[in-house]
């Protein structure tokens, strides 16, 4: 067929590595780009940490390169601090973590795990990557327009965002690109999982990772459009002079704003959180999936409660659409509405607990192999646990009145996303690296990466709970130095910042490991070095064009480890017989 992107095997360099329609190449493109963004977002945060630990002091070494309009004499301006905060959040979530989880792991692993030759729409898949890159570049460019990048927080609340500098307009345009990208991806993932499952691979035989990606894709598909709508409205407010989010009688710097008024600031918050709460499950579900795969592989026995995990993931997906206003208790929505959202928030924590419990119980009685991927996967469990449990007080409006917009909230969600999801990502990289490159990563460097990272992550985020409980607000330029009630917890800032820089230092073993292992070293002799049951390991290494030499047929569930009477302690899904 003339328009089949798979027909030609004689591809030149550009077709093969740059404008490729192969899900594996696109996955790697996503992975490398997103790791760079993750690193960049991390650097923004390290600058902020200097300002919090040493407010008003010039930034050593790099301060003088930041420019007079950002940091005159190396001392950070409040406006620049706000840019850093807004862009750190945006970049980490939309350009780092989600593209890694969905764009990289989802793209590379899902078609392999379901025994498919590629995604259903390879060209849309490529378009999705390029839209993502365009969004990323737009965000980066916004640092260099007059007034700098967006500086109204990653949440872009109006009226502030409506009247902010040009960077905010670019933020909206960037988000439109990213939303387009994720829409193309989501359609592709869902059709791929529904349509291209190998014969015999029924839904209840899908690995948990595929389930997680399926539900994630539905969240992206249905939750992002409202943010797109909100973005369009904010764009019109900014460039066409409308008043969607501007109430009547608004004063700016003592002057009444020349607009018609009649808009509502809460409208933005509703539209934003309608996306952003499901988005937090986009940030966590694929990571849970990765951890489940690695856990099952290294405990050498089936996951405990596979079915309850699957139903919990689906239930989480549904519920995540009706909890959004737990981010808005302080807006005075009224007790009736609060009561509804408190109830749904308490209900949604149940499936998370079910999943975590299943994974913990799975560990029981296993003969566990503690390799680097497993260390990260096991550490994910308590870290996510802390993050989830600290969410409960936030979900009840009475305690949230005290905790809202404090460092406690920062601690809560970072526990879920940093030592939670990002550990899941590291676990996934160490785990699937041998399939992608045909080489194993170094174990010693892996340990040198893991242990300090675990330590520093906790030294960074645990003290934030203390600061938040003491009443320290987030987004303060000087970290709250001027408040009497915060004097007792200010000194924690230094420790947190030191730990953050320490964390950065101990990412070096990872970067070295990644590059070094790619060049030579440790070539794996087997296509299935971890002795895994799922289909991605039953391919050549790295999988060629079309993935499987012959179409695989599936005869069993995903985690048949240590089956009594079986020849080996793992029985691949495509192995025929009882």
């Amino acid at each position, binding site marked *: 067929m003339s328009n089949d992107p798979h027909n030609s095997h004689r591809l030149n360099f550009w077709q093969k590595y740059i404008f490729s329609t192969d899900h594996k190449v696109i996955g790697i493109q996503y992975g490398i780009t997103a790791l760079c963004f993750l690193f960049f977002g991390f650097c923004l945060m390290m600058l902020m940490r200097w300002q919090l630990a040493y407010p008003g002091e010039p930034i050593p070494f790099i301060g003088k390169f930041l420019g007079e309009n950002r940091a005159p004499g190396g001392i950070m301006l409040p406006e620049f601090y706000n840019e850093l905060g807004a862009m750190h959040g945006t970049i980490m979530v939309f350009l780092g973590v989600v593209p890694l989880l969905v764009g990289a792991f989802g793209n590379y692993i899902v078609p392999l795990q379901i025994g498919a030759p590629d995604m*259903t729409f390879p060209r849309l898949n490529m378009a999705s990557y390029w839209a993502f890159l365009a969004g990323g570049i737009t965000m980066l460019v916004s640092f260099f327009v007059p007034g700098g990048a967006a500086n109204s927080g990653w949440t872009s609340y109006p009226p502030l965002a409506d009247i902010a500098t040009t960077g905010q307009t670019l933020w909206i345009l960037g988000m439109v690109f990213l939303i387009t990208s994720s*829409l193309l991806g989501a359609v592709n993932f869902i059709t791929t999982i529904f349509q291209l499952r190998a014969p015999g691979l029924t839904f209840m035989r899908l690995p948990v990772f595929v389930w997680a990606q399926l539900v994630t894709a539905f969240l992206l598909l249905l939750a992002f459009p409202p943010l797109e709508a*909100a973005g369009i409205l904010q764009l019109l407010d900014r460039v066409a002079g*409308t*008043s969607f989010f501007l109430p009547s009688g608004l004063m700016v710097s003592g002057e009444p704003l020349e607009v018609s008024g009649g808009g509502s600031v809460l409208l933005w918050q509703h539209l934003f959180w309608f996306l952003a709460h499901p988005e937090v499950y986009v940030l966590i579900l694929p990571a849970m999936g990765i951890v489940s795969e690695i856990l099952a592989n290294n405990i050498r026995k089936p996951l405990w409660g596979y079915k309850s995990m699957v139903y919990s993931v689906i239930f989480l997906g549904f519920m995540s659409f009706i909890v959004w206003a737990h981010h808005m208790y302080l807006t005075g929505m009224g007790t009736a509405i609060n009561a509804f959202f408190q109830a749904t928030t308490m209900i949604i924590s149940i499936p998370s607990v079910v999943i975590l419990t299943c994974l913990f119980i799975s560990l029981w009685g296993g003969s566990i192999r503690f390799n680097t991927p497993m260390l990260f996967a096991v550490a994910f469990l308590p870290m996510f646990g802390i993050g989830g449990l600290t969410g409960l007080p936030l979900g009840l409006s009475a305690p949230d009145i005290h905790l809202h917009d404090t460092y406690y909230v920062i601690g809560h969600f970072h526990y879920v996303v940093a030592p939670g999801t990002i550990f899941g990502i590291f676990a996934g990289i160490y785990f699937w690296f041998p399939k992608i490159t045909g080489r194993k990563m170094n174990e010693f460097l892996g340990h040198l990466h893991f242990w300090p990272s675990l330590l520093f992550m906790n030294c960074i985020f645990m003290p934030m709970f203390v600061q938040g409980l003491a009443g320290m607000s987030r987004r303060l330029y000087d970290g709250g130095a001027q408040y009497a009630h915060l004097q007792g917890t200010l000194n924690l800032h230094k420790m947190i910042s030191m730990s953050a820089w320490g964390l950065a230092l101990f990412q070096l073993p990872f970067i070295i490991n990644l590059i070094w292992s790619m060049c030579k070293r440790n070539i794996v002799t087997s296509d299935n070095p971890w002795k895994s049951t799922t289909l991605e390991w039953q391919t050549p290494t790295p999988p060629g064009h*079309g993935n499987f030499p012959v179409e695989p047929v599936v005869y069993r569930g995903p985690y048949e480890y240590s089956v009594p009477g079986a020849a080996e302690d793992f029985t691949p899904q495509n192995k025929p017989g009882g």
Partner: protein
Amino acid sequence: MDAIPYTVEPRQDTGLYNAKLGVWLFLASEVMLFGALFSTYILLRIGAAQWPLGSSILNVPIGAVNTVILITSSVTMVMSWVALKDKSFGRFKLCLGLTILLALAFLAIKGFEYNAKFEHHYFPKTSTFLAIYFTLTGLHALHIVGGVIVNSYFWGPGCKMWQSDPEHFINRIEVAGLYWHFVDLVWIFLFPVLYLL
């Protein structure tokens, strides 16, 4: 294993070919997009001190004519698909051509309407009613433009596929039709909400 299966024939257990599932998913996300804007309309209206009656600002007869035009175009769209099923390529060309012309007529009338508003100094920034009116109808018009581009492609260069791979081509027209009916449906909600209520 090289070619992607189910590009033309449906998969047994889902009963769908890939593109059909794809377009339904895409439309689901579109429902959320317009749903969010309709919710915006409701929220703004509930919160407003006063809200104008649509018919006092907008031209109801013109809106009604446009409604008829779009519904007719949906009918011709279906007829073009049926024509292909009957293997009548000439009738297909006629019906799809009519669909495109009707869509262009809709856009022309919409443009005329916008222009009349501007002449009366009614702009998006004039009031929240006009703001949401221009946003909803503007976004809808963009969807019409998208549909015109897709349909023109299938009417022009894209229709060579009828010779090489007729089944696949019929599927494509079906998918384009699903999209077109959706755009039509959005208008059927827009018209009463904005013009009549």
